[in-house]
């Protein structure tokens, strides 16, 4: 999935605009429906929708060039084509990366990292971060509620809101630093510094389709690059 995501991100910017990115986005949408990731495609549309509108406004309203009337607006045709290409690029990249996130299994990823002998530290950083983010978001919400209960007011003028940032963020950051001590000790106890190769209890399967996709994506990107350079 990482290979597919990386490959599509590169292809989105490599294929000639506006047709290339639009066809790529259509293919990504179709693929996401086929593999049952329609929800990721919908989430990506929600992420991209405001950007699509702003792209159409910013690039479409740019002066000069041939004009096209849409309702009361006189829009630049070149600007609209650029907005379409850029919107399709963003849509393709967002869809495939959200599908990657939806199918990402942290423990399977760590097993695969150990199995291949890759750096445990890099794998741990990613997985520990993904686990820490919801915990800290929850803690931030608790601090917010606690400070509100103590009478902290963070509505009103921008200055008052900015002042409220200190009592809201300081407990979060200080709590984080005290937690780091405990975690560091736990990691040390579990031999994270050990120089011997780590092993996994369950080796994740690496099927033939997985291997084909892993090899096919770089080949596809290279072919697109050669095609662009030759054309």
């Amino acid at each position: 999935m990482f290979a597919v995501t990386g490959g599509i991100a590169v292809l989105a910017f490599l294929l000639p605009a506006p047709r290339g990115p639009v066809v790529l986005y259509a293919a990504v949408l179709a693929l996401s429906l086929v593999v049952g990731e329609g929800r990721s495609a919908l989430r990506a549309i929600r992420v991209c929708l405001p950007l699509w509108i702003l792209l159409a406004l910013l690039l479409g309203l740019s002066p000069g060039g041939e004009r096209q009337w849409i309702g009361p607006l006189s829009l630049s045709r070149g600007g609209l084509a650029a907005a379409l290409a850029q919107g399709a690029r963003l849509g393709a990249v967002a869809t495939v990366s959200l599908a990657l996130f939806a199918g990402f299994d942290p423990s399977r990823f760590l097993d695969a990292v150990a199995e291949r002998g890759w750096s445990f530290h890099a794998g741990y950083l990613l997985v520990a971060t993904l686990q820490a983010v919801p915990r800290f978001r929850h803690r931030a919400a608790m601090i917010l509620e606690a400070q509100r209960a103590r009478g902290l007011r963070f509505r009103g003028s921008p200055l008052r809101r900015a002042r409220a940032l200190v009592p809201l963020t300081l407990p979060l950051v200080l709590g984080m630093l005290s937690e780091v001590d405990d975690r560091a000790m736990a990691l040390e106890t579990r031999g994270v510094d050990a120089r011997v190769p780590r092993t996994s209890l369950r080796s994740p399967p690496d099927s033939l389709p997985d291997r084909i996709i892993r090899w096919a994506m770089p080949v596809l990107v290279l072919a697109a690059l050669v095609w662009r350079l030759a054309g």
Partner: protein
Amino acid sequence: MSPRLLALVPSAVAINLAIGFIVNQVGLPLYLDSVGTVLTSALAGPLPGLITGLVSQSVRSLYEGFIWLPFGAVQALIALLAALAARRGGFRTVPLAAGWGMGVGLAAGALSALISFFVFKGVTATGVTAVTLALTRLGLSTAQAVTAASLGTDVLDKTIVFSLVGITLRALPQRVLGRYEWARRALGR
């Protein structure tokens, strides 16, 4: 990487992402998504700060789609400049930290404008793009509007981020400061 740094970096990344929730609740038009990066650089130096910034942008991209990944370069720049500030004792006082924040905001804003213009055609976060759009209606070219909007938001944002980190470092007990080799130098002690 030592166990302490291996524990610090994921938490600092989580801080980068969790503070966004606080900012949303407070209703300020800021990001403050580099507090963890600046703090890590000030406590542990440029490399851990750089890793925090890059992991932060990668994880954020996982949640919101990889479209924001190119802004990892801005996080990297902030980490390196924050380490420079720490090395020169830039967090000695809160006003000094705010001054460094302004400088870093200018540099980060300039890089951010380049990425916004060349990779995203000027359309990035909704708030900044709304400012860009308003500036183009005032007669500025797209490039000028993107630069002005990025510089304006980044200077304000990084000034507040550096001030918050300055306040945090000064609030840390000596026992905690002693565990990070860059912390005392950052505070000019």
